[in-house]
């Protein structure tokens, strides 16, 4: 039958919406999932809108009473009924404290290589941002650990990645430092007491340096992300925080 989410296959809308509901529940349950790329692409905006609506509703109902229960939030009716209790309580207890100010961009989509089966389907990771089990968080931590073991400074792209990961996380920088130390121990067999890598293969692997070392703390820093075609200037930093007046159309 093929992928039911593709347009020419959508014969039954119920099936497509059911897949989206299941993907939505499982992303929240497991923090990250691996699916095919078209399914992930179709489900991502639906998960985003579900999370924004339900988190908004939780924020509003918290103003009136202290303990919010699953039955109060009518947005949870989007999910399949067996999932509502588990997923709803997780959103109320964990996700609302994880995303206090975030309005959108709760999920991230990472492309993977194709599946090794017969169909060779393109695969992707769909994950919640700022979680403890975020793939991108650990990947950047591993990158930073490798660069530190090689004795290099961070390049521009890694610095941007570190910033995106740590800026909105609660105690982001300290958690990231802990993750880097753990990555050194876990992936590179780094012994902290002696300060050396114990595995011989990894030692040989670490000698494989990047081609142009000028990007890593040399002359070419801050040039990688600048436009080569146009002479652009950096935007000046905001001086004062502008307060936007609340909209009169929103019912308070």
């Amino acid at each position, binding site marked *: 039958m093929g992928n039911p989410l593709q347009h020419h296959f959508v014969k039954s809308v119920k099936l497509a919406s059911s897949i989206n509901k299941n993907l939505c529940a499982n992303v929240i349950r497991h923090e990250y999932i691996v699916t095919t790329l078209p399914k992930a692409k179709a489900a991502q905006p639906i998960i985003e809108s579900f999370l924004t609506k339900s988190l908004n509703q939780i924020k509003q109902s918290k103003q009136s009473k202290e303990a919010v229960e699953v039955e109060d939030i009518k947005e949870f009716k989007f999910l399949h009924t067996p999932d509502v209790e588990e997923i709803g309580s997780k959103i109320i207890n964990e996700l609302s404290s994880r995303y206090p100010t975030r309005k959108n961009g709760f999920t991230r989509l990472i492309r993977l290589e194709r599946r*090794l089966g017969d169909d060779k389907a393109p695969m992707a990771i769909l994950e919640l941002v700022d979680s403890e089990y975020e793939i991108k968080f*650990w990947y950047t931590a*591993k990158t930073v650990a490798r660069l530190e073991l090689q004795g290099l400074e961070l390049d521009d792209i890694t610095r941007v990645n570190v910033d995106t990961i740590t800026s909105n996380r609660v105690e982001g920088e300290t958690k990231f430092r802990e993750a880097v130390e753990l990555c050194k121990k876990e*992936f590179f067999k780094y012994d902290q007491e002696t300060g050396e890598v114990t595995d011989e293969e990894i030692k040989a692997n670490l000698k494989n340096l*990047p*081609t142009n070392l000028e990007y890593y703390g040399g002359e070419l820093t801050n040039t990688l992300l600048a436009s080569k075609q146009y002479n652009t200037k950096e935007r000046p930093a905001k001086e004062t925080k502008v307060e936007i007046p609340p909209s009169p159309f929103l019912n308070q």
Partner: protein
Amino acid sequence: MSLAFRFGAIAIAHESLLNIIPRLPAISIRIGETVSEAPASEIDPRLEELAEHLHNNDGEPPFMIDNGILRAVPKKKMSYRRHRTKLYAPGNKQVQPLHNIVRCSACGRVKRSHFMCMYCFAEIRTFLKGLKRENGIIKDAVDPQADIDPTDARILYPGKNISAHEHQLKKKDYVPKREEPLMFDKEKLMREKKKWYN
């Protein structure tokens, strides 16, 4: 006599086969001393084998020769047009080289740009599974009979004989596994050809 026709041309060159074929009166013309003898070419070992076989079996050919059984062969010669259409008509039959190969920043192996490095992903996923197990999110099923006496276990669960085929299936060789990627080396990359219209 079809054997003689088939092997005649080759067999004449072989000295050992000469005594099978009826001898013709030798014609030799000598023109002074200028004509030198042709260099002795190397003899095919199969021919020697055939000669031995004929010598042992009173001149009868082996079974696999001239027994009336035809082997699979194409029925007709493939025409020039058909040959060329099959090979060259749909231009995308060849596997195209990848030009978006970069170095993975976390492990130094090759990866495609804008794609996750599958080697790192596999490492991180197994690590995160362990982390989830530590934090109590993944709960392993507890075996209710973990502290059973070994003799009791042998009597209660004697097991069953597994055939060689089932044993092979248990190894799960049929599941395809991803190969470990090579270390990145810039000199081994294939450079992209410049397009003529640029």
